[in-house]
């Protein structure tokens, strides 16, 4: 395809920073997201995800650094660049006073690459009538309609910001199914922001973790999971000072037994625990959501007054 992202990256930032007054939302971020497959972005509230998208889509100027989307500087996006980018936000903001048919006709006029079969395929998963007013649709129907509009645009890049927030299980399933299995979504690079680990585990080829405006992980979910390990140690006296525990994400003492969630620690961690007086040491497997949550809540791992 002509004019695709240079170097095969759909999104690329270099030294990107954004401050709101004294608060740093994006902190010298270097990120390069390759074309193809589904990339999940997770991060605590305020990690900088929404700010990043606003900058990438050219709605917000950066304080410093570079941002490129589909190979183009985000500050200079043309209408034809925008045609190649689909964006679905959590609110599914669409004019409530227009009918489904009217919104569809409007979008069709805006987008030269509009595909009616793609629209029909996606909307077929939802019980949406052309004559209905958008304001009368349920949240799940509006989400489906929004996804149908975005995919009919035949984007090369589809950015979804918390798209299933507030959807019931049925609507959520329909949404994920369309995203992963419809012909309409084929060949499209998807950026998926979500706080719902269950969805991340189902959809993500690549897991991107942002924290305080900086990139903290970029790998497959399984690879990330294997970086985190959970150790149970029976230490008869006091355990080690948490500040000395290598890679500590989370520490708990349950029924006199110490539980450690640690990052990037191999079998050498056993030696560490033994040196601290541990009698019995076990390693337990970690689920993806526990690994991500442990990683994101690391700041709270060490109580100030320990």
């Amino acid at each position, binding site marked *: 395809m002509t004019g695709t992202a240079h170097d095969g990256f759909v999104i690329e930032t270099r030294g990107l920073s954004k401050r709101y007054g004294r608060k740093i939302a994006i902190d010298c971020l270097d990120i390069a997201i390759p074309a193809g497959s589904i990339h999940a972005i997770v991060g605590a509230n305020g990690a900088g995800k929404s700010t990043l998208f606003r900058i990438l889509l050219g709605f917000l100027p950066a304080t410093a650094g570079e941002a490129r989307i589909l190979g183009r500087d985000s500050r200079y996006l043309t209408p034809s660049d925008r045609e190649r980018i689909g964006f679905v936000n959590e609110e599914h903001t669409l004019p409530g006073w227009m009918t489904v048919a009217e919104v569809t006709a409007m979008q069709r006029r805006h987008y030269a690459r509009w595909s009616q079969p793609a629209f029909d395929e996606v909307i077929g998963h939802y019980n949406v009538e052309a004559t209905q007013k958008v304001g009368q649709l349920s949240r799940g129907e509006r989400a489906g309609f929004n996804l149908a509009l975005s995919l009919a645009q035949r984007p090369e890049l589809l950015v979804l910001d918390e798209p299933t927030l507030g959807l019931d299980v049925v609507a959520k399933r329909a949404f994920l199914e369309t995203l*992963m299995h419809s012909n309409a979504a084929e060949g499209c690079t998807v950026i998926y922001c979500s706080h719902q680990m*269950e969805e991340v585990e*189902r959809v993500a080829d690549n897991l991107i973790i942002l924290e305080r405006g900086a990139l903290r992980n970029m790998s497959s*979910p399984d690879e990330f999971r294997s970086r985190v390990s959970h150790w149970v140690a029976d230490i008869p006296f006091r355990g080690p000072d948490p500040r000395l525990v290598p890679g500590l994400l989370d520490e708990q003492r349950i029924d006199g037994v110490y539980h450690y969630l640690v990052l990037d620690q191999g079998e050498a961690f056993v030696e560490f625990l033994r040196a601290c007086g541990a009698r019995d040491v076990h390693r*337990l497997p970690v689920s*993806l959501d526990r690994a991500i949550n442990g990683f994101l809540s690391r700041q709270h791992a060490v109580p100030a007054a320990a």
Partner: protein
Amino acid sequence: MARTKALPIQIVTGDPRPIGRQIVDAVRMRIATGELEPGAQLPSVRGLAQQLTINPNTVAKAYAELTAEGWLEARQGLGLYVAPPRQRLSAGERDRRMDEAIQAFVHEVVALDYPPERAMARLDKALAVLGRKSA
């Protein structure tokens, strides 16, 4: 001519085992118990992904692992089938893996402080499903 049957497996999210691992385990278990017989066809990558609402790449990776281990075989242009049974590992490797499995099991039992006799009885029952095929 063998027909594709739906593969009645479930996956759960939030499990310590990655989804791909759960698929590999479930298929191997079904082959080991004879529920999936040699020559049976597996669902397509897309089909199973859709059934489980997961990313097709996850299914593709699980199938690749099962094929590499010799549990499944590809027939050109037709899809994946359960391979005829054969010993896939050398005798030494097989013993080594068995030792590993026993070690892991024993450690768990110790951690649970479970009486060995009851553990044996439960293990016996769990392994009985494997006996069914050869019986």
